[in-house]
């Protein structure tokens, strides 16, 4: 026998999954470089960490997706965060752990983690 509460619990759990199927151009995009260079440098666990993290926390309006070679192969895995109306943020040499930090501070907290961005390496 299902109660209204049980129904709500299933709904909340499933919503994170089906939300992946909505298309919204106003959403923030997290793009992971997944060319040969990126994959060799370990982009797959990073992609997985972002994707799981966003879904587990039920964050809406954020899309995790892949792209090809960004052209800065020595800095791979590279992750770009593109929020509408904001400047693109490029994180370099990412790991699954760093990905969790980015979700926590940047995506949720709104604060760019400058220590991991491309600017930190170039300076």
């Amino acid at each position: 026998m299902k109660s209204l509460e049980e129904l709500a619990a299933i709904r909340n759990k499933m919503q994170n999954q089906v939300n992946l199927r909505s298309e919204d151009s106003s959403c923030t995009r997290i793009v992971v470089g997944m060319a040969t260079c990126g994959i060799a440098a370990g982009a797959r666990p990073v992609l997985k960490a972002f994707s799981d993290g966003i879904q587990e926390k039920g964050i809406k309006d954020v899309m995790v997706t892949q792209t090809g070679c960004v052209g800065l192969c020595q800095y791979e895995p590279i992750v770009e965060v593109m929020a509408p109306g904001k400047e693109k943020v490029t994180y370099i040499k990412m790991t699954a752990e760093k990905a969790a930090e980015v979700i926590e501070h940047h995506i949720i907290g709104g604060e760019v983690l400058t220590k991991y961005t491309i600017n930190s390496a170039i300076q």
Partner: protein
Amino acid sequence: MYRSQVLICGGTGCTSSGSDKIAKKLEEEIELNGLAGEVKVVRTGCFGLCALGPIMIVYPEGTFYSMVKLEDIPEIVSEHLLKGRVVTRLVYDETLAENEIKSLNETNFYKKQHRIALRNCGVINPENIDEYIGMDGYRALGKVLTEMTPDEVIQVVLDSGLRGRGGGGFPTGKKWQLARNLVKDADQKYVCCNADEGDPGAFMDRSVLEGDPHVVIEAMAIAGYAIGATQGYIYIRAEYPIAVQRLQIAIDQAREYGLLGKNIFGTDFCFDLDIRLGAGAFVCGEETALMTSIEGNRGEPRPRPPFPAESGLFKKPTVLNNVETYANIPQIILNGAEWFASMGTEKSKGTKVFALGGKIHNTGLVEIPMGTTLREVIYEIGGGIPNGKKFKAAQTGGPSGGCIPAEHLDIPIDYDNLIAIGSMMGSGGLIVMDEDNCMVDIAKFFLQFTVDESCGKCTPCRLGTKRLYEMLEKITSGNAAMEDLDKMEKLCYYIKNNSLCGLGQTAPNPVLSTLRYFKDEYIAHVKDKKCPAGVCQDLLTYKIIDLKCKGCTACARGCPVGAISGTVKQPHVIDTNKCIKCGACITKCKFGAIIKE
């Protein structure tokens, strides 16, 4: 957790073009590439764009692949799913813009649509109740049972202005109100669903049942609560095996979750559902015949009154609604009557699903707000008519409806407007015809259908439609006189006025509407003994134009009856006495030297 989900259409259209095998191959390739825990394959219901099937869509990007073949799968997996590189050659070209890929919702086919009844079709896995719940499923049932009285439910449906989507257009709330109040102290009432979609060219009910079966179950339970019924029946035609199978899975899942059965959501409300299969008779889509068939009798209609709300299934008060009508109910409950009533025209609220077919680019399912014009549907959503041909007419309402000529392309589609121009909404089949279609032949086609499907119980329909068909045959064979047209029109009205049920009462509509708008074509058949569109075989002669014929002998070799003679490099001739008018010579001729007139 999956980072990516690949949705594959599992509707009847895409299944018949091999989407099942593609889904299996996809799962294998995903496994091979070590992506099993990351990418999920979901089989959904119909996306609507059946012309481009098999259809596949990859989220989160929303990449729309069309006409996917089995051999494309390894490339899609290794390129797109593994490396994130979209396989552009397979992307639906309307979504391909310069340097980027547009969202599907921005394409012409989808941007004017508003999906309420089809909202979950092509989005969820219909065989997984959890996905339906994730899309707010069964929340409306919960709300109704715990927060609303039956009268309040009926009031919301009344206020929404929802009308029956099966074609009649009777206000749904009114129907429920009658079933609730007409017979006091009834010991049993029933809720039925008409899923005996029989109109040639209509397949929206099938798509809803295949793509979102739970919405019908939820809505029927809501109807049960509103009128005080504890048992429901879904009458579905056996020709829809995928829909039947998914519906049964859905019913089993709902029972397992306690969403059907006793004391739903811990309230006193009990409701259960069963499927009844139709054996393929068109007349069983008529409500009284449908109920007679559920009772186990031969599917024949009976006179009304009494209406089903008073004495329906097993002589008990019964509500009978169409699949698409039910598919609107949960959203109306959740979003309110005003939300629904804000869409559409003054007397027709909400949206309507149409099955686009015939001479049109994007054959498939579209859901549009009432009041959209036929021109928008055919030219913008449907992508116009292929091969640069000219629009002649659109046929709505199947064998009960009529043809709409070009001069009425700009009227807003709703129940009353369509009836005013001699057609009807029907269940929503919309068949587009171009200049190559003969309207007399179209009328004959639909009449042939009603002659076959007339159940035979009443004479006007049984004999009337047969005589009407014979008159049409006389016209298309060139043996009719002008007074036959008047006789035919008289017979049409006789059948309309005297038939027992909707089948006979509407059967002459295709004839009447073509007589109204395309009388010149009838006259051409009768007076000039010509078929202007070049369809009616008896009125055609095949001819070889001497000047164009090179004497290549291709036609003579292609003729199955040896009707063409001539020597090499000399113009050939067709012996009209031998010619069977099969058209084989026209397809063989490379010089366009053979014409029919």
